[in-house]
């Protein structure tokens, strides 16, 4: 595709509105498109997306490709890859961006291989190289111990997935104008080789981890399921949520849905209490965007103290009750 042009974002819609992750993609996509002097477009897949298309324009898109097909009602890999292949053939983008989430993580590699091009997953920085005009894709590797920068030369589109909360959305501007283009998917049900037959929600009650302003996380050092109640008590004071490291989830102390880290959830709260966790790079990948990290750990050499802003060296079983009491008093006063 020698005439490849512009930036295309794979857009997701949640509850009828453009998903927060997609707003972030449009934000970075807009920056990349202006650096190239080329347009920004977004692909929206599924039925009933007229309102979302308008909203995507308000968040920065110049063009919206809408693919309406009953097979695209909910994400399934086979029809989505087929539909995106069509959109890419028509839009011929230079760059394609997806989110590193349930859908993007599953869709982007399939699409990259189908189109015979390169992909960098989980990028935390994306920019255009001034001389080559290629996309510079920076992503954590080795469990977050290192960063690597990649370029994809001689193939198009250059594909990247973006880590949640690594990029800023533009302010919504409803006066922005854009064009909406319909693409027929022409999908046949036989395209579906792997069919989703059931979806089961396991999310814990209360505030969503990703939205919580205060997150209290526990690690291997918590020592057991019952001790997480102490974290609940602290989180509750601030209307926050409880998270955990992979080690704590794998031990069966807490459900896997509250895992924070490279393969779990990405959070960026104002306050992140890291309790009895060592601060392995894989975990920090999920919380390094927190504004204030407060570490409580009895090992003064723990890696978490290298990442934290405030720390107490001590046994959490003694620290937490006093901390909860004092915070309660301060919040009441």
């Amino acid at each position, binding site marked *: 595709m020698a005439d490849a042009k512009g930036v295309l974002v794979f857009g997701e819609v949640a509850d009828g509105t453009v998903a927060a992750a997609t707003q972030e993609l449009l934000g970075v996509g807009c920056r990349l498109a202006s650096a190239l002097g080329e347009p920004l477009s977004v692909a929206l897949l599924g039925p009933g997306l007229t309102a979302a298309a308008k909203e995507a324009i308000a968040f920065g898109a110049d063009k919206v490709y809408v693919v309406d097909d009953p097979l695209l009602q909910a994400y399934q890999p086979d029809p989505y890859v087929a539909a995106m292949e069509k959109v890419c053939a028509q839009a011929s983008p230079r760059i394609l961006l997806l989110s590193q989430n*349930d859908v993007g993580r599953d869709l982007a*590699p*399939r699409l*990259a*291989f189908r189109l*015979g091009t*390169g*992909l*960098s*997953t*989980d990028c935390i920085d994306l920019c255009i190289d001034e001389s080559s005009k290629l996309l*510079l*894709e920076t*992503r*954590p*590797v*080795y*469990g977050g*111990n*290192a*960063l*690597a*920068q990649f*370029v*994809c030369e001689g193939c198009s589109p250059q594909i990247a997935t973006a880590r949640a909360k690594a990029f800023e959305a533009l302010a919504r501007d409803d006066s922005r104008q854009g064009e909406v283009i319909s693409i027929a998917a022409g999908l046949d049900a036989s395209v579906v*080789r792997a*069919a*989703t*037959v*059931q*979806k*089961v929600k*396991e999310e814990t009650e209360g505030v969503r981890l990703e939205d919580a302003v205060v997150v209290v996380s526990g690690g291997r050092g918590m020592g057991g399921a019952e001790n997480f109640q102490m974290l609940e008590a602290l989180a509750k004071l*601030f209307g926050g949520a409880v998270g955990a490291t992979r080690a704590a989830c*794998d031990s069966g102390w807490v459900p896997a*849905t509250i895992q924070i880290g*490279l*393969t779990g*959830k990405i959070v960026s709260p*104002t*306050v992140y209490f890291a309790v009895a966790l060592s601060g392995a790079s894989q975990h920090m990948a999920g919380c390094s965007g927190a504004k*204030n990290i*407060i570490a409580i750990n009895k090992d003064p050499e723990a890696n978490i103290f*290298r*990442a*934290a*802003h*405030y*720390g*107490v*060296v*001590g046994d959490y079983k*003694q*620290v937490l*009750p*006093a*901390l909860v009491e*004092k*915070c309660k008093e*301060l919040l009441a006063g």
Partner: protein
Amino acid sequence: MNMIVCAKQVPDPEAPPATFKIDTAANKVIPPQGVAPVISPFDEQAVEAALRIKDAQGGKVSVITMGKNLLPDVVKKPLSMGADELYLLEDDAFENGDSYSNAYVLSLAAKKIGDYDVIFCGRQAADWDAGQVGMGLAEMLGIPCVTVARKVEAADGKLRVERVVSDGYEVVEVRTPAVITVSNELGEPRYATLKGIMAAGRKKPTVWNAGDLGADPAKSGGAGRKSKLMKLFIPVREGTCLIVEGESAAEAALNLALKLRADKVI
């Protein structure tokens, strides 16, 4: 059931972060001194997923490992857990590949083994964390793929897979042959038994090079990359942690609360 598992040898991801070093001139990770490499943890879970099916209904588990400087004690671990065959893909032409060229070479090995019902891979490898090879392999073989599995059952030429999503899980049905990528939610991989270790020690892996696989040198290893590594570096972390102290842990906690309030953090 004929099953293939792709298992990669990687530097131990549990090694202390301080032992992690990079040769910035060569853009390469320097293997840490005194820390043995391991099978990538998600790949070990992929071996476990295959063995559970073998336990339930019988079958054969063949493991493919591609790499250089492979250590017998490391790459034979799947055999000692209960896998039946081990294929090592060793050739300078396979070196420095990316997801694309690695999936290409693995797809040739899978075709050469042939007659497979399922190929298991880890959801991502602990070195480059890309999470692409399983899906790429499926694309190259023209078969379906289900990712991030926590449970896999086989019946009537179909696989029933529970896959992890952020708010729970999905049940997916897929016909065989298929590629399944496995996540840690599957549960702990089994330990090798003494009997397994003895048997693995006696077993001779099959070694294949580029010629054996008929691999196109232009599509393999570094030459077949779609994505070029420009820079590899350790991010700078500022060490500005304020350690709040006290006569006792409880007093330190109290001082922490006061400090956080004074700094308007809470």
